[in-house]
């Protein structure tokens, strides 16, 4: 164990050996399933028939990313015992609340590859590009954030520089994802989720007992390290500053993220519910559990190294655990960022393959070989772009929170388009742009939230609360209960919100985005004479080439080192 105040180092050799073990293992898995000629549809959705074990592991691994672990620890340290709940629970519900809509989307477009592709079939090019554009923005930012987290942890636990760290991480992820795309991403997710969850099971109790066990709580209170608000499980401070903005983002992240949509299209249709429920529990338990390290740091009176709360997790692990467990924590962090980064690469490649190349030449004329090549080039370009952004001085997490709120403009128009025949392309496009036009000045306080403008924003925010809760209820219970829930929520929030919500511009920005997109989309659609036939979507979307499994079974590459060719169907 290191002396007090020092963080255990793994050294260059230690870090390189761990990275070689991790990326060597994932590369081996990728080679085992690789094919000389990858199927274009398999490259994007793995044949639409993935089983429960692989899909649940993949959804869990994809949603747990390095930033979620860091942010949960920060929430625990900042807001006390309820902090990790107000980070992890709402993040978990993003997965849960999408599955009812996912079942509907899958029913109307069983063989689609991206959500934007379905929007093209439903509305046309402008709606498709709006959704695809927001997906690309989110995935590039997420990819960048994961590279930054990797570079930072390598620089912290070894003498290697941040620049060397991001290059190693980017190279490792690209290496095992490039050839087989989504299939490699999904299969390696299983190994990564075992590493992550296994590490969490060991590390959380180990830090707890090695840092003093239950006595840390009484000692922390006596030393004045925690405030009564931080001791409370029902902290209003934690709810308003951490929880509420995330509740508003629950649906936005689910709709705006192609990594979720890709798994919705990939898993066997009857396994959508168990997959997403399991991933909800897996994500929530892991992220909230790791957040307990922040709660412990608070009670122990730990000061973040360099005053940066992002250092708290490696600091707690490196201070209290022996080197073997520090290595395990390192693998947990590398696993979390790699599993999300490979999913982002797969998401980006499928968007460019389907929504740019596939739609520009037409499904019948698309050349599957060219398509796979475009997917691979996209991955290389995206990796280079993320490396560039990682070395620039952007605040990536702030950017991602901003994009998450931006996605709020899309939620109602996208969801309504899958259920309501009357929603037109004009209603979709105008409602999203109108919501953007109101969201931006509120989010960045371009005009002070006072007087009449402040009142308008608060009224829209109150409507936004009703819209968010109404859509959530709609997914599970249908239209009538959703209208009742939305109406009750709006009326109940009215006296509470007026004169109060204007103090929370991040939350208000998200809520007005929901409200404006709902009001404009509804008012433009309710009188529309369009009677859209949802069967059209299935005709417009679909496979770009023949049966995935038939191609794969006949064309496997044997694992490296195998003396005999692998049998068909390996």
């Amino acid at each position, binding site marked *: 164990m290191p002396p007090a105040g020092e963080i255990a180092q793994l050294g260059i050799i230690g870090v390189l050996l761990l990275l070689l073990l991790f990326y060597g293992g994932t590369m081996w898995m990728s080679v085992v399933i690789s094919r000389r000629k990858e199927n274009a549809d398999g490259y994007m959705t793995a044949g639409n028939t993935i*089983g*429960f*074990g*692989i899909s*649940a*592991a993949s959804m*869990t691994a994809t949603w747990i990313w390095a930033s979620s672990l860091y942010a949960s620890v920060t929430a625990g340290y900042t807001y006390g*015992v309820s902090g990790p709940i107000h980070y992890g629970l709402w993040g978990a519900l993003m997965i849960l609340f999408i599955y009812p809509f996912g079942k509907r989307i899958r029913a109307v477009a069983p063989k689609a590859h991206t959500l934007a592709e379905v929007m093209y079939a439903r509305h046309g090019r402008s709606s498709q590009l709006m959704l695809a554009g927001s997906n690309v923005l989110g995935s590039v930012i997420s990819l960048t954030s994961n590279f930054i987290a990797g570079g930072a942890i390598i620089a912290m636990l070894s003498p290697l520089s941040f620049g060397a760290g991001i290059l190693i991480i980017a190279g490792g992820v690209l290496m095992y994802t490039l050839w087989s795309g989504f299939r490699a991403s999904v299969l390696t997710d*299983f190994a990564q*989720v*075992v590493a992550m*969850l*296994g590490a*969490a*099971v*060991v590390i*959380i*109790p180990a830090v*707890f007992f090695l840092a003093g*066990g*239950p*006595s840390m*709580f*009484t000692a922390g209170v006596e030393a004045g390290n925690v405030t009564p608000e931080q001791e409370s499980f029902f902290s209003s401070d934690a709810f308003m500053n951490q929880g509420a903005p995330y509740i508003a983002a629950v649906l936005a992240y689910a709709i705006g993220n192609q990594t979720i949509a890709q798994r919705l299209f990939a898993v066997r249709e009857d396994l959508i519910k168990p997959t997403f429920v*399991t991933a909800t*529990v*897996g994500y929530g*338990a*892991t992220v*909230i*559990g790791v957040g*307990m390290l922040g*709660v*412990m740091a608070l009670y122990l009176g730990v000061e973040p190294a360099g005053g940066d709360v992002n250092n708290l997790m490696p600091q707690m692990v490196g201070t209290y655990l022996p080197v073997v467990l520090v290595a395990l924590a390192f693998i947990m962090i590398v696993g979390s960022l790699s599993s999300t980064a490979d999913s982002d690469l797969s998401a980006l490649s499928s968007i460019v393959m389907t929504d740019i190349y596939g739609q520009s030449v037409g499904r019948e004329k698309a050349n599957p070989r060219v398509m796979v090549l475009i997917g691979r080039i996209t991955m290389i370009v995206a990796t280079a772009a993320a490396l560039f952004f990682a070395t620039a001085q952007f605040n990536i997490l702030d950017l991602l929170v901003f994009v998450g709120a931006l996605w709020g403009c899309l939620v109602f128009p996208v969801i309504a388009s899958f259920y309501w025949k009357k929603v037109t392309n004009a209603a979709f496009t105008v409602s999203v742009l109108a919501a953007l036009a109101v969201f931006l000045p509120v989010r960045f306080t371009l005009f002070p939230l006072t007087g009449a403008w402040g009142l308008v924003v608060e009224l829209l925010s109150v409507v936004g609360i009703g819209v968010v809760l109404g859509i959530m209820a709609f997914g599970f219970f249908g239209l009538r209960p959703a209208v009742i829930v939305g109406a009750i929520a709006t009326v109940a929030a009215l006296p509470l919100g007026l004169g109060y919500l204007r103090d929370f511009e991040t939350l208000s920005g998200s809520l007005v985005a929901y409200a404006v997109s709902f009001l404009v989309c509804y008012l433009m659609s309710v009188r529309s004479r369009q009677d859209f036939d949802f069967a059209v979507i299935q005709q417009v979307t679909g496979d770009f080439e023949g049966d995935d499994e038939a191609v794969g079974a006949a064309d496997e590459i044997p694992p490296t080192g195998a003396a005999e060719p692998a049998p068909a169907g390996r």
Partner: protein
Amino acid sequence: MTALLTAYVLMWPVLVLGVLVTITGAFVKDVR
């Protein structure tokens, strides 16, 4: 309060272990 906080901290790794066993079992089943 100490007992409650201890249980609160330690319940999460137990829950994670449950998910890990579920996913691993299902994965093995998928492969077989």
